[in-house]
């Protein structure tokens, strides 16, 4: 696609509910990143995929967070048993190359999913 597409745009979940957030990167992009952005703060890294391989998940805040990219294109971020502190905008970004070279091309961000846990 022309840009990075994320769905849904907005999600309201009751505390304890499971949610799944989808990211469609730019076609052919190798690298895919998930970030969490709390209100009034900068995005914080969650996890990184190079094709289908999850190479870094050091930013996932707890084992309730799980991400996958089984075919190296679309990715899903799943949050189990949502808590109020999970309320944030979840941003996905992709880059055409992998590894060190990804930094040289910058990342294209999607519009994000705003998750509100009530």
């Amino acid at each position, binding site marked *: 696609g022309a840009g990075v597409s994320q769905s849904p745009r907005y999600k309201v979940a009751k505390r304890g509910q499971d949610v799944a957030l989808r990211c469609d990167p730019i076609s052919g992009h190798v690298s895919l990143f998930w970030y969490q952005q709390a209100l009034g703060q*900068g995005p914080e890294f969650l996890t990184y995929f190079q094709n289908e391989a999850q190479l870094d998940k050091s930013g996932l805040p707890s084992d309730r967070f799980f991400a996958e990219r089984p075919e190296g294109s679309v990715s899903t971020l799943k949050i189990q048993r949502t808590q109020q502190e999970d309320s944030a905008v979840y941003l996905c970004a992709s880059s055409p190359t992998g590894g060190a070279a990804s930094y*040289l091309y910058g990342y294209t961000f*999607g519009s994000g999913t*705003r998750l509100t846990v009530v």
Partner: protein
Amino acid sequence: EDKVVQSPLSLVVHEGDTVTLNCSYEVTNFRSLLWYKQEKKAPTFLFMLTSSGIEKKSGRLSSILDKKELFSILNITATQTGDSAVYLCAAGNMLTFGGGTRLMVKP
């Protein structure tokens, strides 16, 4: 732990003013520093800086990197109301972002 700090936190100016936004960084594996503009949700790419002292320019926006002092500045001249946004800088592995500078340009 990688750290990126931006200042000021927020700024209110009038159209036509010039602003300078600051970004300092301490990252273990520096390859580039990136600036983004965030108006609604999606940060949009402005600049990528990899070399010290080389100014990058796009219209009224310009940016420069100092790898010795570990900082970058983003300048916006002749500001317009459309420049109102949060400006983010990021560096390091997996992009560590600063907290952003919220710029408001009044008519």
